[in-house]
């Protein structure tokens, strides 16, 4: 006998709600577990002092700084390239073989495992270019890792602008470049910023691409030395730098200090909180920027 449409509808609704709840519970459980284990470790000392790998009682200060500085360096490389590439794909590329090829390359690149990009970075950037284990090598590897996502987000953000906007600009006698910068960009900017911040979250949590590029150690840093060429300076882009995510991996797998489990838990909690903050702020910043740019309430 066939089921009544109403009954079928009810069953489907229940199944879908249960699945959705399952995902939410899983996510909250995971978050709760990480935060519960780690939040007790977090205090000012933990966030600012250097790790003590042998005797314990250290913090994650340099790693936290490295992660943030590396993110900044990566964005400096990725934003011009990614936004530029995306704008090209959305507004300039003519449909044809070359465009399809570029799109294929971008898609293949975006599905590359990050460890492979790390190894590629080791061979090309670290060894061949002779940049060594350094923040700059790490930033370049992360840029490769992140670029496809950036190009795609930008292209989609520009394509999502109604084509009537562009027509209005053309009919008003504006140049293509003026239309892109003054009419399309303000409309696309909120999605661009949201996309960039979400990508930043991914960059921030990335470990595999960095182990062989930015390195797994950090020289003792002197936070009073702001000369970018001095080897102990925190802002020297050519020094090796272990990031937070790499540190978690290292402490967890080969830590020998008495408190390495607690350090890993605390660092994980910090990482999760920061990535969450990136995600939550993305929407909010996107909205604020849109209001600023368009005079809407």
């Amino acid at each position, binding site marked *: 006998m066939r089921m009544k449409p109403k009954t079928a509808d009810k069953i489907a609704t229940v199944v879908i709600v249960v699945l959705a709840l399952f995902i939410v519970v899983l996510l909250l459980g995971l978050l709760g577990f990480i935060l519960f284990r780690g939040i007790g470790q977090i205090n000012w000392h933990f966030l600012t002092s250097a790790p003590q790998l042998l005797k314990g009682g250290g913090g994650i200060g340099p790693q936290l700084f490295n992660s943030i500085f590396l993110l900044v360096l990566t964005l400096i490389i990725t934003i011009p390239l990614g936004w530029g590439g995306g704008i090209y794909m959305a507004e300039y590329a003519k449909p044809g073989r070359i465009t399809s090829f570029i799109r294929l390359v971008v898609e293949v690149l975006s599905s590359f495992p990050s460890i492979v990009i790390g190894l590629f970075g080791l061979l090309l950037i670290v060894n061949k270019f002779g940049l060594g284990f350094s923040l700059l090598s790490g930033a370049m590897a992360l840029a490769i890792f992140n670029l496809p996502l950036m190009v795609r987000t930008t292209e989609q953000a520009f394509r999502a602008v109604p084509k009537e906007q562009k027509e209005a600009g*053309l*009919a008003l*006698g504006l140049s293509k470049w003026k239309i892109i910068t003054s009419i399309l960009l303000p409309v696309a900017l909120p999605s661009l910023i949201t996309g960039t911040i979400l990508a930043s979250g991914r960059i921030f949590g990335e470990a595999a691409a960095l182990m062989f590029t930015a390195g797994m150690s950090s020289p003792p840093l002197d936070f009073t030395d702001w000369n970018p060429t001095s080897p102990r300076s925190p802002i020297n882009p050519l020094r090796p730098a272990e990031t937070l995510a790499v540190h978690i991996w290292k402490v967890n797998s080969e830590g020998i200090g008495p408190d390495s489990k607690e350090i890993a838990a605390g660092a994980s909690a910090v990482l999760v909180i920061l990535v969450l903050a990136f995600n939550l702020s993305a929407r909010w910043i996107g909205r604020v920027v849109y209001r600023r740019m*368009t*005079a809407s309430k």
Partner: protein
Amino acid sequence: MAIPFGTEQLSIYYGHFQAVKQISLTFPEASVTALIGPSGCGKSTFLRSLNRMNDEIAGSRTEGHIWMDGNDLNEPGTDVIKLRQKIGMVWQKPNPFHKSIYNNIAFGPRYRGTKSKKALDEIVEKSLRRAALWDEVKDRLHDSALALSGGQQQRLCIARALSVDPQILLLDEPASALDPVSTGKVEELISELKQELRIVIVTHNMQQAARISDYTAYFYLGSLVEHGETEHIFTNPDNRLTQEYIMGRFG
């Protein structure tokens, strides 16, 4: 002798399909010309070719001449950016920029080099007055244009087109997405504006064509069937096809 503004043997192709077939049409000064005809007859394509907006459609090709003050706008060397400042355009769906009311109008003039705030203020006021929108928005010029009603947005788009002082205005079904009151306002506006510029309007509304236009051109399957004074076309057309369309027998 060169035609002041009009087309000569204009044909437009999309790939192998010929959408507009050798149309010669002139637009007299200070008048409204209505382009009518069933959907797909090529009238919108024809309209869009007049300011070279068809160039933006991949695979389109335009042959023939578009004359304006003795220049052929369809010559490859034509500066389309300059040309589009002389020929404004408004679409069926209002498309204000995502900017304030003020900046929607000031944008074009500012781009063309008007920098002083006073001059821009004047242009904004003048354009909005010409588009009969000033009284409704003068107290909220810096609010978003998207907060306006559909009819107001459409008049804003007309004001925006007027801001760069065009000689010709192309209207592609400018009132078909509006309610009757807003439609009335837009029609009134068109009759006002034709004192100063040439207007070419595509419309599906026969009453509208009869009300506001001085000349009417009837398009069918890409060809110009009949062209003449509106009164003549609507009361005593020469061609049977025109009569049948106007009487609502097909279309």
